[in-house]
């Protein structure tokens, strides 16, 4: 709290310059500024620097901005296509083929599925009972000593204002390197891992080393894509008030694989290895 006999802190000066103080606090700051040359000079410095930075920011980027007309037309064209696009595309593609071709394609697909199923069954028999139990591989779960999971202060309405995927940001390069170092992973193998949040930002997870770990893309069963599905599911449940945020944070940080099994009511990931590979190869459409 500001007192008349104390000088204004830099933070208070900044808040005053930006009009972010409460009315009462702003009045106190103004009263102090009126009486104190030192603080007034600092305030002038601050405001001068703000003006200089804003001017510089524009001078750097404004000259390279292309005219808006072309991009605006492009956006209009893309928007005009959007509403019917997701559903219509597949059907229009399919309808080009004759009924005979479609039936033949269905038969081929059925035969391929049957053959693949038979091969998987044979493989599972050869591997023994553990193979169908979706075993954990090295790196599937984080080291609890290095990555216990930490949260930031966030309310449910903050977290639910956007879809889960909109909340997830990219981990910065220095932080990514710190996590790889902590887990003793050589840089040459860094691309095999997603530096993932144990408690996702969409569930209030914090962006720090205690909440990040290198999750292998290469795991055949419990990989980064499967965990993404769990995060999305928990985010939806929390926002629909079907699940308490604290419970979601605790379950995902304690044992995310067990949490997946619990919330998807399954012993193995719903997406197959093939799905995960497809997601690696194909660009996201949404």
């Amino acid at each position: 709290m500001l007192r008349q006999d104390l000088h204004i802190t830099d933070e208070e000066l900044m808040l005053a310059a930006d009009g972010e103080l409460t009315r009462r606090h702003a009045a106190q700051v103004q009263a102090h500024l009126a009486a104190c040359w030192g603080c007034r000079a600092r305030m002038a410095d601050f405001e001068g620097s703000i003006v200089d930075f804003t001017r510089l920011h524009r001078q750097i980027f404004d000259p390279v901005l292309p005219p808006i007309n072309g991009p605006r037309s492009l956006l209009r064209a893309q928007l005009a296509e959007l509403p019917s696009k997701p559903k219509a595309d597949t059907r229009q593609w399919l309808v080009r083929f004759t009924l005979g071709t479609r039936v033949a394609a269905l038969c081929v697909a059925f035969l391929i599925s049957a053959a693949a199923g038979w091969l998987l069954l044979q493989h599972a028999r050869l591997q023994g009972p553990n193979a169908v139990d979706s075993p954990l591989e090295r790196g599937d779960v984080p080291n609890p000593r290095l990555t216990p999971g930490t949260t930031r202060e966030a309310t449910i309405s903050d977290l639910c204002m956007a879809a889960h995927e909109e909340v997830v940001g990219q981990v910065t390069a220095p932080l990514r390197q710190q996590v790889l170092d902590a887990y003793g992973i050589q840089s040459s193998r860094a691309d095999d891992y997603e530096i993932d949040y144990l408690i996702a930002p969409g569930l209030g997870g914090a962006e720090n080393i205690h909440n990040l770990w290198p999750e292998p893309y290469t795991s055949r069963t419990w990989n980064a894509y499967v965990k993404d599905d769990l995060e999305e599911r928990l985010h939806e449940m929390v926002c629909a008030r079907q699940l308490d945020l604290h419970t979601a944070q605790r379950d995902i940080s304690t044992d995310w694989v067990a949490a997946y099994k619990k919330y998807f009511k399954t012993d193995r990931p719903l997406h197959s290895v093939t799905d995960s590979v497809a997601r690696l190869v194909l660009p996201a459409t949404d």
Partner: protein
Amino acid sequence: MNSTDSISKLLFPATASAAPAAAPSEIEREVVDLFEQFRDPLLRYALSFGIPVHDAEEVAQEVFLSLFRHLQLGRSRANLRGWIFRVAHNLSLKRRYANQKFCDWAGHGETILKRHFDPSPNPEEYLLSAQRQQRLLAIVHALPDMDQSCLRLRAEGLRYREIATVLGISLGTISISLSRSIARLSCADKR
């Protein structure tokens, strides 16, 4: 109607006839209006991550297509400016990472400044002004990423609550970050 046609209609009812081109919806118009309003600030912000101009344009397009879906799904309209910049922030970071160019934007900025600087009548003034800008640029470049983002978002006119939405940090952290950065910039003139 033959049997092939009837099966086709049964299987693919929506494709039986092509829909006529529709007039722009209310949401489309709203999104285009917001594009006109925020496209330049968004491009400047995306460019500040060191990504090329065409990547920044693609980020802007992607942001407004996402905004269209967001509004179409009836999601929250509170703090739309913060939402737009947050999506742009995340996409720009991804672009930068994907390009594997942790581009020296300060260097990029210096080049642009040299190219576009309007020389003042007096060569001495020009030199002083250019030197001062290089100093400011060097200070900004030396700031942590989050502090740089706070500064740029504030320079684009975002309020603290909106910056908090974009960067996922508290209001207190924003005021500390901004005051620290501005104090450093103020020192540039005293050297």
